[in-house]
């Protein structure tokens, strides 16, 4: 639940989603659901030489289970807030 509510706060920001097959896609976070499925807009592939055919797609839906990392914009990371949230989550409250 922590990740879900955190990612919801990041809607509208630029993120880079790295998939388990090494493909990394950068785009504006459009939405995220409870399974951490991610919808991106105005996407582009980070490593364009390796994946030329994915040069640009208008919008993109990524299955939560294939996501390895999500790179966040530094200004979207409130360390204090995250710290509190993780502590609360660890306490189970």
């Amino acid at each position, binding site marked *: 639940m922590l990740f879900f509510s955190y990612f919801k706060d990041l809607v509208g920001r630029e993120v880079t989603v790295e*998939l388990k*097959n090494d*493909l990394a896609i950068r785009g504006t976070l459009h939405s995220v*659901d409870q*399974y951490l*499925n991610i*919808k991106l807009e105005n*996407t582009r592939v980070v490593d364009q030489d390796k994946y*030329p*055919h*994915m*040069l*640009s*797609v*208008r*919008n*993109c*839906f*990524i*299955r*939560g*289970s*294939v996501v390895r990392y999500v790179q966040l914009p530094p200004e979207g990371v409130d360390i204090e807030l995250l710290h509190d949230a993780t502590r609360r989550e660890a306490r189970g409250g």
Partner: protein
Amino acid sequence: MVLGVREIRFSGEPVLDRDNGEELMRVQPGTDIVLGNLPRESPGTLYITTKQVIWVSDVDKTKGYAVDFLSISLHAVSTDPEAYPLPCLYTQIDTEEADDDLSDSESNPIEQDLSNVKEMRLIPSDPTQLDTLFAIFCQCAELNPEPNDDEEEEEHDWVFSADQMVDEEAEDEDYISHNPVNSIGQSNGNHDLARTILELQINDRRFEDAEEMDDNEDGTHH
């Protein structure tokens, strides 16, 4: 569950697994399909169900392909002619095969091994339908979350659940044997009546305590 694209043979329309809640979401006639680096196949009809995507050739209506939504790791609307000459719905397929296998399938085009197909493009004759198809794919993906998120193997999940059930039953038995209320209700002897009266007395005493507490509180207020 079978990962990846599979070739299917049937007569007439695709049969849905309605007992397991599979429903038809959309039929999109006039849709071409491109699997991996294989040649484009056309024309065909696309059936989107709550569980899978099925493409049936219009030329040979017994021939088609199916892929479960569980295997579709990504889908996107591709309209850039540099990415692909025609506007299409681009999908990536999770095959759980090593990436190196891709070159093998290219070198041997006669024996088509669909288990290596990692990409699928769906090209509707009417490109204005792409956004609708994209939205339906999103909807269906959300209907198909990972069945075994916490467990490595589905079979382990079953064993684990069975153990849990046994434990829960044992706990229930403990609860019944230690709970005096149940033994009172089980027979109508005088002994039980006596216990009921005893309980009433306890309740009375509790009631008195509560009143005293209220009095004390009143005292502090005034």
